[in-house]
């Protein structure tokens, strides 16, 4: 608001303390709850305006009750959810099992084309049944041990919500309700008095968006905003920058249908050739972690025993040479396909990798593309290129379960998987069906197997995000802050 920014420009610290001002990277296209797995939507929606039945604790990885208080299943197929009583929607109506059922139907079983549908649920529809006002059963086609986790992506909306059109301004049950949306300028949320849980500290939350990182940082330093997302170390935020591990992993995905990546030695060589430690140290200020697999610690299935590939330029050269000696055309051009501005310093990273792969004896051409173009390389059916393709991917597992990673990236026909093997597919299938310790173990095997026998990926790092936070605010980011910024957790600093 005018008053706020006016005061802010003057002193910086004297921000009105009843409003939390957040500055995002981009404006949410909509606040449609069934698309809240999209970062730009979810960051506002999730657990703030709308709430799911079940919520994953990003720190512990445990599922916690939200609008459902209990859930259970005998066979991992039919799941029964007990719903919380006394919950009200922002429009005053009471939350019942009807609403929960409608939400699931709308998001998963409709023709709405919701983003969660493809992202979290497979092609199959779910059976939903309202038992009574507070009881709901959800039936999966096949046994699904992580169905509650999947359900945690479904933000509950009233049953009256249109099932044929998406909504821009949702009605939810969350601690904040949407007060106003000045399209292009800002979104204002106001504390929902009828909230069933604890009242948040801030009466209002105000979202703005700036695409330049340095501008977001500047807004924190000048006192125009309290929280800024998606900063990078260069944005000169100083002490006000708070880093956090953000679940994102960067890797190179290699195709294997052409020379030289059709030879596993070359793919191994790529892994040896990249100086991950060096990159992390010099480009990312040592905050990122060198990665050995596509999921970071904290995700079910993360294999703690895997160690990253050592940086060994000599070995890389040697492997390439060996392949060459065996008749592999190691001089064939490889396109290193990179999406512009996907994450901080991606251009620099791409150039470093190009350089290091060239050192190893490969012929690498850098291809920086805009999102839509890059997607044609990222998702099946893959665009053809004049040569072999190495795609830089940034994968974030928001769900905390490796299934969300491996199904996509490692199965033979996975939407974002360049290739796989039958054995790996089998391992994955087994892991998907497993539960508990067994599940953890099974996915660990999957990751170990890929690193040893498939080598589709050259892992680079598990990234660290950074938010800017004014000294007047008390908020601790966690691994999901980038996807769901729970403003209700923020408090004025003492």
């Amino acid at each position, binding site marked *: 608001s005018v008053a706020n920014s006016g005061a802010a420009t003057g002193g910086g610290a004297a921000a009105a303390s009843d409003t939390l001002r957040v500055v995002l990277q981009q404006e949410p296209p909509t606040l449609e709850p069934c698309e809240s797995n999209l970062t730009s939507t979810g960051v506002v929606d999730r657990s703030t305006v709308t709430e799911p039945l079940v919520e994953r604790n990003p720190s512990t990885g445990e599922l916690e009750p939200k609008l459902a208080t209990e859930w259970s299943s005998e066979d991992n197929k039919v799941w029964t959810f007990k719903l919380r009583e006394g919950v009200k929607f922002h429009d005053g109506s009471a939350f019942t099992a009807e609403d929960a059922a409608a939400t699931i139907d709308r998001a998963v079983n409709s023709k709405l084309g919701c983003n969660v549908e493809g992202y979290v649920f497979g092609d199959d529809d779910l059976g939903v049944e309202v038992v009574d006002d507070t009881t709901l059963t959800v039936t999966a086609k096949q046994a699904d041990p992580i169905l509650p986790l999947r359900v945690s992506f479904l933000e509950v909306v009233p049953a009256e919500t249109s099932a044929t059109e998406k909504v821009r301004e949702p009605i939810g049950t969350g601690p904040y309700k949407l007060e106003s949306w000045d399209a292009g300028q800002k979104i204002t949320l106001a504390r929902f008095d009828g909230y069933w849980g604890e009242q948040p500290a801030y009466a209002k939350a105000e979202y703005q968006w700036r695409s330049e990182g*340095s501008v977001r940082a500047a807004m924190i330093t000048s006192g125009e905003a309290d929280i800024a997302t998606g900063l990078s170390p260069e944005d*000169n935020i100083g002490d006000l920058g708070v880093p956090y591990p953000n679940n994102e992993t960067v890797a190179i995905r290699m195709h294997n249908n052409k020379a030289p990546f059709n030879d596993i030695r070359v793919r191994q060589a790529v892994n040896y050739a990249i100086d991950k430690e060096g990159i992390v140290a*010099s480009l990312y200020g040592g905050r990122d972690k060198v990665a050995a697999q596509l999921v970071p610690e904290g995700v079910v299935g993360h294999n703690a025993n895997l160690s990253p590939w050592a940086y060994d330029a000599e070995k890389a050269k040697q492997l390439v040479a060996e392949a060459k000696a065996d008749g592999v055309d190691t001089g064939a051009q490889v396109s290193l396909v990179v999406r512009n501005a996907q994450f901080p310093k991606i251009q*620099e990273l791409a150039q*470093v990798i190009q*350089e290091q792969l060239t050192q190893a004896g490969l012929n690498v051409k*850098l*291809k920086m*593309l805009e999102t839509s*173009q890059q997607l044609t390389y990222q998702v099946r059916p893959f665009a053809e290129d004049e040569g072999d393709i190495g795609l830089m991917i940034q994968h974030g597992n928001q769900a905390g379960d490796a299934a969300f990673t491996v199904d996509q990236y490692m199965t033979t026909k996975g939407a974002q998987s360049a290739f796989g093997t039958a054995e790996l597919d089998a391992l994955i299938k087994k892991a998907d069906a497993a539960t508990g310790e067994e599940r953890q173990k099974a996915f660990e095997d999957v990751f170990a197997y890929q690193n040893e026998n498939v080598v589709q990926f050259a892992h680079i790092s598990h990234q660290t995000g950074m938010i800017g936070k004014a000294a007047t605010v008390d908020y601790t980011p966690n691994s999901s802050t980038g996807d769901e910024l729970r403003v209700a957790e923020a408090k004025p600093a003492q």
Partner: protein
Amino acid sequence: MSQTTQDLPGTGPDGTKKTPAGHSATEPASPARREAKSTTPNLFRLLLRDKFACSGAVVLFVVLLTAAFGPALMGDLATKQNLLFANKAPFNPANGWEYFLGSDSLGRSVLGRLVVATRTTLLVAVPAVAVAMLIGSLWGVWAGYHRGWRENASMRIADVIMSFPSLLLAVVVLYVFSPSIANIVLILALTRIPIYLRTARAESAELQSRTFVDAARTFGARPNAIIVRHVIPVVTPTILTLATLEFCYVMLAESSLSFLGIGIQPPDVSWGLLVSQGRQYLQTAWWLSIFPGLAIVITAISANLLAAWLRIATDPSQRWRLAVPGRKKLITRIPAKESK
């Protein structure tokens, strides 16, 4: 009858008494006079006389040389990474001359990158300006000369191009083709054609009503011949001046495209891209964006200085401005004497 031919050579007015000075008024006799005879002063000499334009020319020449030979000399330097030597400040002799302008976030020499970027920048800006200038001005001259429907249609086409979002064009070209220097040139050239088209058309329309063009028509000269002989030479200085302003614009447009991520793509490197990439290090490593920015500004100013001069130098009615006041007097001072 004899009167008529009096000033023809050989039949001087004073018949037998022909003296050198009396020989003629138009043909200078003394060597000194003959030397000064050429009244269209040598352009190069005029250039040397204007300090500003001269320094502009020198800068442009250096830039051209850099673009021509720099990459061969410093190509390796520009790509040699050294992650342990990242973001070193400039003007530190201890780092060696290669790092005189500092190093970037990958430890590459800023100097080397600047030099290599010169070629890309010129390869984008010069052809883009040249292509747009050639097409736009020839088209405009043609449209303005013929007037009528050709003029109207051309102006409407210019309107279309002007109101077309050039960014969309950029994305289309980048998507349908691939991000390459040639395609950027294509976009920038295409979108700037109307500027020349309009200017050339206006001048040409004015020129085609001039009497000397009518005169050419009376010999039966064809329109194209008239355009080549009479219209183009007059329009050229204006178009050239415009082209220098456009040169600056094109460099900027290219950097804006880089900023939006749809321009020159790494590993190619241009001044605009360097500024764009360097902007995030503004507070931590100012030299990454300041030096390429300066390069753009200095080149633009130099081109403009030269163009301003060229405009005056080629305009007979303005050329006197290039004279430095009181520099040289061509005034004969002969004491007048009363005589009987």
